[in-house]
């Protein structure tokens, strides 16, 4: 078996594991029923797009309505099987993300395949990944943005000129046409297709979610690091699309950005309500913005703070440090981050520091870009694309470390090295398996919402007279039995609870 085959088999296993658990989560009530009912009343996909343009004063996300309408049409065509279509779509996109991760990583040697096994644990074990797969919105836009980021990076890695057939000339000696030496210089139609795909990814991502703008960062960083799959002309087009986005948002739709107090966010060890935020930071919003940007940038490499809140410190201060996952999450993240920093500080074969290589540089750019876009409130999901690229850097670091350790470890140190490596990768495996627990718990919570957030226990998400889908959605959710986390061994909550 080739290393790349082994890597893809492992990727498939991770993809099946995650997507199966994602599929088991029913469509949730909050942030879902309203949009489903509203979009279902639009006559066409174009009308859904238009509705999305005017749905909010602060959020420009018309692709959310557009894709939702497309999926609703598919669900109607299949006999109103909403869970099948929406949850199937979410499960499929989760699998696509994991597949793209391996595609971008390009494992070729056995060291790469081993590093990929480790990196998949980092990818799925990070808290920024959980948000992409746990929240059962009609479409999980955070997951889609991470996919667009990886797609654009994969396009940047492409070498469209090599896809073209080298020109042939008739060779009189051979009596038949022969390929001319060397590759075709022109990017040709393949290059154009790559450029168009990159621009389309950016346009769709930016109209899916504000943090979709980070896709532009991926394209520019990859180019700056030397990848030429996306041409300079396409970068100019992406820049023009960015300007167009701003004009549409500010000039055309008169939208405003998020201000202090529109959503709760963490500060220090506390989660501040919108009122607390207005009182505390209304007169000096820059303090909150600076803190939120910094805490968002730290949450990927340190796994703390969570949504701006230093939850582990809060738990320690409250004397509640029994929850093992805090310790495991922070320790495993510190080790992975140390590996990533070490790798980026080393020099590659070309003599330059590796932080300037495509994946590390793009990772830093996505981290900075995503943190900046989350200035008004911190949310782990906004940092999910940064988490994906962080895992890619860890992949490179582990592969490099494996090669160096194999070549340069003295005989007396070999056994201790093996034990330490096994302990670290086991700790990450333990953390990654926790995703399964969190997803099962997510399924239980989403199913429970269909009782607790519905009449007579709660106001309906939409007035009953306007609800065409709600009853069917409720039945689909309730009649799919799910694991009750409270019936499991109680310590699971401590091992893999919410951090």
């Amino acid at each position: 078996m080739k290393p790349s085959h082994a890597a893809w088999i492992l990727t498939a296993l991770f993809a099946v594991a995650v997507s199966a658990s994602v599929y088991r989560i029913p469509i949730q009530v909050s942030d879902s029923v309203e949009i489903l009912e509203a979009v279902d009343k639009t006559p066409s996909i174009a009308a859904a797009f238009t509705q999305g343009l005017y749905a909010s004063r602060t959020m420009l996300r018309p692709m959310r309505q557009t894709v939702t309408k497309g999926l609703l049409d598919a669900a109607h065509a299949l006999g109103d099987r909403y869970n099948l279509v929406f949850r199937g779509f979410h499960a499929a996109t989760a699998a696509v993300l994991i597949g793209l991760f391996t595609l971008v990583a390009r494992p070729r040697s056995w060291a790469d395949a081993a590093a990929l096994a480790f990196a998949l644990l980092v990818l799925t074990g990070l808290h920024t990944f959980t948000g992409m797969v746990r929240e059962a919105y009609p479409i999980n836009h955070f997951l889609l943005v991470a996919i667009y980021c990886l797609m654009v990076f994969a396009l940047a890695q492409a070498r469209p000129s090599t896809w073209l057939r080298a020109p042939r000339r008739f060779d009189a000696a051979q009596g038949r046409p022969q390929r001319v030496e060397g590759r075709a210089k022109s990017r040709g139609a393949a290059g154009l297709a790559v450029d168009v795909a990159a621009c389309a990814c950016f346009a769709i991502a930016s109209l899916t979610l504000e943090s979709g703008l980070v896709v532009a960062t991926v394209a520019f960083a990859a180019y700056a690091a030397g990848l030429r799959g996306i041409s300079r002309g396409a970068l100019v087009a992406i820049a023009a699309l960015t300007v167009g986005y701003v004009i549409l948002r500010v000039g055309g739709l008169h939208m405003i950005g998020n201000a202090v107090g529109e959503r709760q966010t963490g500060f220090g060890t506390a989660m501040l309500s919108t009122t607390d935020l207005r009182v505390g930071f209304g007169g000096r919003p820059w303090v909150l913005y600076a803190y939120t940007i910094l805490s968002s940038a730290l949450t990927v490499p340190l796994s703390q703070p969570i949504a701006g809140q230093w939850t582990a410190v809060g738990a320690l201060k409250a004397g509640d440090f029994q929850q093992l996952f805090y310790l495991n999450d922070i320790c495993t993240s510190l080790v992975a981050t140390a590996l990533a920093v070490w790798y980026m500080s080393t020099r590659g074969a070309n003599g330059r520091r590796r932080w300037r290589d495509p994946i590390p540089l793009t990772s830093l750019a996505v981290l900075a870009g995503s943190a900046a876009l989350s200035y008004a409130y911190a949310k782990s999901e906004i940092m999910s694309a940064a988490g994906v690229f962080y895992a890619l850097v860890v992949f490179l670091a582990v592969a490099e470390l494996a090669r160096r350790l194999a070549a340069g470890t003295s005989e007396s140190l070999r056994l201790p090295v093996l034990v330490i490596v096994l302990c670290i990768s086991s700790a990450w495996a333990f953390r990654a398996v926790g995703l399964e627990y969190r997803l099962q718990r997510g399924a239980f919570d989403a199913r429970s919402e269909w009782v607790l957030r519905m009449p007579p226990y709660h106001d309906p998400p939409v007035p009953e007279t306007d609800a065409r889908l709600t009853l069917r959605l409720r039945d689909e959710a309730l009649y799919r039995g799910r694991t009750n986390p409270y019936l499991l061994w109680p310590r699971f909550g401590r091992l893999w609870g919410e951090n």
Partner: protein
Amino acid sequence: MDSVRFGKLLLAAIALPGVVAGVMTGLSGMSAFVADRPLILAPVPGSVAEAAGNRDVADVVVMSATTDMNRAELARIPLRLHAPAMLTPLEAAVVSERAYMITLVRDRGARLDAATLRRLRCIAQSRKDRGTIAYLAQLDSSSLLCEGVPIPY
């Protein structure tokens, strides 16, 4: 250990936990897709009392359509009880320490007469859960005497 063997063992040490996790969760995922039942953290069949005791509002709603909501059944409530106990859904709801669960179980057909209410208040009292004590006190605010009232666990 020679360097070739060390190199192989090193790669195994890096990859093995990931491979084990991938195979384990991947097979569980296949089972979930094929049989609607994951191998890891699989749902366990339970009674309506067990659902009420473990905050499973959805299962209470689904099961109540075909179950006697006043019958005591053996219920496991790991978060609250060390051992399974024979509980009615209402008793289990009090043990869950969630007032909304008591409301739900009543709405789904459980009878709450004076003797039952007294027993529930005594269970809540023994658990010292302020939420359910206050909820049940709204239904009967008379002084409570729990002598002779059996606590079913």
